[in-house]
């Protein structure tokens, strides 16, 4: 019995020795960066933009390899990260509120505790837009139309249970009106219907509207302060509707990451964020950046989960 305990103790010692060595020169092999979407999508472009900066700032000749595992709106990829070895050699992209919403509307093999939260990099706030040809070009006119008859305002969206959908549910509460959801599959047909005036309004993200100011009226932006990309557009809070919402994209690792590895990854993300070249690259690919790391990111995630749970209870989207 004692012999067995001492063997286990010896094994544990050995294990801790080898793993301490591993921290000393992390990363000791290539780092897989798992993207839950196909190559060329918004999240993929973010991952590929970040990867070379991460390599540079991690040092130690780090190699970051982007691996696409598309399917089930990102769920397959994020599940793979949750189940990976927590040694820092597998990290992944993470989307909010989508990834937390999936734990409510589907049988997910992960939850909020399955991850080590590294850094949220992109914060793409929601905006309300209407076609340029539409008379509805202010929030007041929109709300008046919506309150006049239930369901009179049709809203094009890219999917159910995403940031745009949560935004709409909040809008519905705040303005005390019912809207007709028109969920397309993907943002392309949703924008096509919106620009063509087939629906009353659309909920899209800041990055999607910056290049289309001549084609669309932007009624408001769901941030606390005005965005420098759209300085003339008022926030909803300014207009009397207290809604702050958006699509968040960041990076996570499996839960139980050794502290040293976690801190070196977070430091690398912080240095990346400070890098002017990185800012320039993100701006060019249309990603509004805002860094939230470690515990703050975990708190942000909990906040998003709470919102999703509240929405799921009062108005489930399926």
């Amino acid at each position, binding site marked *: 019995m004692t012999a067995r305990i001492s063997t286990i103790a010896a094994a544990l010692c050995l294990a801790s020795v080898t793993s301490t060595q591993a921290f000393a020169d992390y990363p000791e092999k290539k780092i897989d960066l798992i993207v839950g979407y196909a190559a060329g999508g918004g999240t993929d472009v973010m991952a590929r933009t970040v990867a070379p900066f991460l390599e540079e700032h991690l040092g130690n000749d780090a190699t970051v390899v982007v691996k696409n595992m598309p399917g089930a709106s990102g769920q397959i990829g994020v599940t793979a990260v949750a189940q990976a070895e927590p040694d820092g050699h597998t990290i992944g992209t993470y989307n909010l509120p989508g990834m937390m919403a999936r734990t409510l509307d589907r049988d997910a093999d992960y939850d909020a505790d399955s991850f080590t939260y590294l850094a949220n990099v992109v914060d793409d706030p929601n905006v309300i837009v209407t076609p340029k040809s539409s008379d509805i070009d202010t929030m007041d006119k929109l709300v008046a139309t919506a309150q006049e008859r239930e369901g009179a305002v049709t809203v094009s969206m890219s999917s159910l249970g995403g940031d745009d959908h949560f935004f709409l549910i909040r809008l519905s509460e705040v303005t005390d009106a019912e809207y007709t959801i028109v*969920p397309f599959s993907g943002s392309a047909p949703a924008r096509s219907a919106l620009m063509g005036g087939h629906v009353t309004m659309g909920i899209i993200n800041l990055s999607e509207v910056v290049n289309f100011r001549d084609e669309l009226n932007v009624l408001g932006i769901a941030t606390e302060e005005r965005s420098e990309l759209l300085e003339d557009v008022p926030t909803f809070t300014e207009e009397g509707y207290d809604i702050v919402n958006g699509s968040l994209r960041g990076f996570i690792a499996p839960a139980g990451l050794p502290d040293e590895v976690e801190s070196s990854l977070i430091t690398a993300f912080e240095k990346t964020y400070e890098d002017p070249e990185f800012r320039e690259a993100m701006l060019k690919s249309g990603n509004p950046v805002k860094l939230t790391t470690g515990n703050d990111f975990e708190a942000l995630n909990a906040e998003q989960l709470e919102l999703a749970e509240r929405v799921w209870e009062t108005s489930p989207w399926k």
Partner: protein
Amino acid sequence: MYGSLLDALPAVLSLGNFAAVVIGVIAGICIGALPGLSATMAISVLIPFTFGMDPLVALGMMAGIYNGAMYGGSIPAVLLRIPGTPAAVATSFDGYPMAQQGKGGYALQVSVVSSAIGGIASAIVLMLLAPPLAKVTLLFGPSEVFWVAVFGLSAIVFLLGGDILKGLMSACFGVFVSLVGLDSISGYDRYTFGHLELLDGINIVVLLVGLYAMPPAIALLEEIVDLDTSMSGKLNTVSLWKAIPSMLKYWKTWLRSSIIGIFVGILPGAGGSMAAFLSYNEARRASSNPDDWGKGEPEGVAASETSNNADTASALIPALTLGIPGTAVAAVMLGGLLIHGLQPGPMLFRDNPDIVFGFMWQFLFAAILLIVLGGALATNSFAQVLRLPRPLLGAFIIALVLVGVYSINGRMFDVYLMLGFGLVGYFMDKLKFPLPPVVLGLILGGFAEQNLRLALRIGGGDWTALASSTTSKVIIALILLVVLTPLFKRIFRPKRSLTSAS
């Protein structure tokens, strides 16, 4: 704007950028010719590598691959009745019978010339008419797109084959497959049985390869003579340049199919396969000998191949100007543009005219290069493959298909699914169920359903909303015209035969 078009030309003609187009076209033809590999997949595989490239090199390769693959898909469709890409299904209707009659070489020549013409027409339209045509895209909301899908479904009548009941059963199977996955409107999973892999629906390549490539490959292994490669191995080709004059009589089909292909390209969500089906059906309807179609009519190959290439560059019209990709490939290409910091929209034309217009030129050159590279090099070398001993060829096809299907999403699930469809296809083949209705049902069934429901949502459940816009009315009138004309012809014809009988 047209000035910047000319300014962009010199950069495109520089050695590196031009070589990229050449390599793209060759790679595209090979990818298209291999069952299980599609243009969408090839470009998504390429995108990560283009990260460090010069934008025009990357975009040139994409333009080349897109055009090349749309033609390449017709090679196995003609020679083996295995469409290399979904868009080549309609090419096999007449191409394969031609190959059986020993005219496989001519079928491929018609195919390459038609592909090039479609591609050239599309590229020119993209260069000259992109902004006005983008406005046409916007006319098509869900109700209008629904009617276009209905129009496409009317083609099913011809595809049913001899036995109408079996044909309809095939079509229903296709529609059923289109239902699998997450219903985007209610948010419920349909027929996924808890598999995450099925949530996004079944990729058309998985179904296509299972139904079309597995049964003939198994037949090759069984050494049954009904798949006659001894004939098609000798392509009986005369030089392409000598063959072209005899094709000039297809000019009406080229024109009609180019227009159909370009139109389908600018519609969001449609794609090359829909263009090919529509244009095949319209060409047959316009033909003076519709009964010969499906038995080896070269014009059928011309119709299908012209339009699936005409859909390439035009799919980029809404993509570049509005950020709305017309096809799945265009969507992937948008990602390729984003990687180089090129965001779609009106600003793109102002800020990066060299690259945007250069990209358009590359589409044009890719289409022209098809004739040279596709006609002279690729076609003949691919025909040699057919001289392989049959069991070897069968095994080769199966191996390729397994790799291709695996690489779509990098998972075995799709491979098992494909093998399941292979089993279904094997028995459909033995029991003489037609395959084309399955493909049409899959492409258009779900498309029609989703758009119908969205249109009704927008209209507040009012069915008259489906026909409220002028665009809808025009399409409905077209459908009625096309469906009713043969009916009237039939009403008048028996009268004459009755009088003659009495």
